[in-house]
């Protein structure tokens, strides 16, 4: 479904991604793990079109997307739930959700997706008129995921959905991710919490300094001594 072929990205002179090769197939959850600065977020931003590869190719369903502007990539069916949530704090919950469906003209479809988001996160329905900046951290993360779903993506990019959240909320978020997969959503998940990511994912890539250091099924990686030592706390 999504293929990154030898993708190189630079920030000015800094060579951030050094030839990433990566594949996500329909219906999979693929995890990207690795330490800070390994290039996980950069990889997602490049897929979404906010960063441009200087070299290499990104294809989605066989179409090259590495030169499309971000809003067209969203229209093709890739939604990005960014790191640090980045919800619009001055807009209401409802406005955040409506905005993410801005390009869709099928009103009944948008309404159905809205109800689906409210079913996944009932608290958002209660707070629909509230200004998003006044939500708790967990509620903001739910809004961020809900907002990404409003474009009805086929591929969901999730960047650190558990960051800075209480364990109970993290559990809820991961349950939602699992239920999205059960509905057939394909997910590329970036996580610091490697243990949780590997439990949920089918396959995973370990990034180190802008390169894929290891890859394989999540189960195999979870058993890999090097991964255990570096990311799973021995």
């Amino acid at each position, binding site marked *: 479904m999504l293929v990154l072929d030898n993708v190189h990205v630079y920030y000015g002179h800094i060579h951030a991604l050094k030839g990433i090769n990566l594949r996500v197939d329909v219906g999979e959850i693929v995890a990207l793990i690795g330490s800070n600065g390994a290039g996980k977020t950069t990889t997602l931003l490049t897929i*979404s*079109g*906010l960063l441009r590869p200087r070299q290499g190719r990104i294809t989605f369903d066989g179409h090259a997307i590495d030169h499309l*502007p*971000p*809003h067209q990539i*969203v*229209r093709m069916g890739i*939604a*990005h739930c*960014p790191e640090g949530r*980045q*919800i*619009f*704090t*001055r*807009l209401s919950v409802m*406005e955040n959700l*409506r*905005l*993410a469906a*801005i*390009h869709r003209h099928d009103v009944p479809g948008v309404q159905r997706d809205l109800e689906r988001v409210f079913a996944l996160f009932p608290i958002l329905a209660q707070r629909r008129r509230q200004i998003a900046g006044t939500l708790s951290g967990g509620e903001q993360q739910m809004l961020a995921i809900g*907002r*990404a779903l409003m*474009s009805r993506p086929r591929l969901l990019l999730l960047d650190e959905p558990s960051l800075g959240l209480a364990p109970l909320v993290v559990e809820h978020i991961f349950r939602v991710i699992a239920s999205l997969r059960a509905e057939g959503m394909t997910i590329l998940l970036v996580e610091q919490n490697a243990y949780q990511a590997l439990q949920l994912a089918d396959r995973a890539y370990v990034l180190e300094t802008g390169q894929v250091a290891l890859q394989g099924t999540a189960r195999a990686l979870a058993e890999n001594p090097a991964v255990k030592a570096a990311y799973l706390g021995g």
Partner: protein
Amino acid sequence: MLTPTYLAQQLVNALNLGSLYALVAIGLTMVYGILRLINFAHGDMMTLGAYLALGIIALLALPVELALVLPMLLVAGVGLLVERLAYRPLRGAPEVAMLITSLAISSLIQNGATMTLTAQPRPVRLPSQLAQRIAIGELSLAVMDLVIVALALALMVALGVFVKRTTIGIAMRACSENLRAAQLMGVDVNRVIAIAFAISAGLAGVAGVLWSGKFGLVDPFMGFVPGLKAFVAAVIGGIGSIPGAVLGGYLLGFAEVLFVAFAPPGLSGYRDAFVFALLLIVLLVRPAGLLGQREVNRA
């Protein structure tokens, strides 16, 4: 001297000036909110509007209503064009590049108008229905004064509804909070920015028409000082905030008129100095302006 009539007259003047500053400040604040661009060419959109109105009335002899609507639409078109040709190619360049470009556009308009139309100020002869005066008790109001306030208020209400209710309005607010996240949500930011420029320029254009009607003159540099004052108004209100621009505009209008009305006669020439002093005081107390939000990190 301090009769109720005099006071009422001054209040009318203040409402007039405040309405005009507010119209111009809104456009500055909208564009700044999204692009972090201080658009120095914004005041010159007033100049364009004023010349267009003059031409429409004098040369084409069209009705007065069209002299308001057509310049607004045409200047909005100029705003679109400038954004497309001058600012869009600089997207992603350091913000100072756009700032300098806006200075260039400003001098292009000022000097272009000087070369083609001469620097000679042209008198505006108000059509009779606008020049009429209405007496309310001892107070005598020009119809023009009422038109300025009513039209400004109507435009501001319309803009408020647009920004609050429509999807493009929501997108505009989202873009001004976090441009990158808006892109990730599928917002076509080029479209939003183009619309913001068009509205911004259109409002300045109509403000220019009203300004020239009120003060009776059009010249190539007429937009410069009101543009600067509108910038002060936007900063006082909290740059990036539309309600802030409206508040700042009226505050500035009132402060300026009341200063001139009540300061000792020798000091009224210092009105501009007074305006800037006011800005300093507001910024010392509230660095983000009255309704401004602290800048979020846009890394």
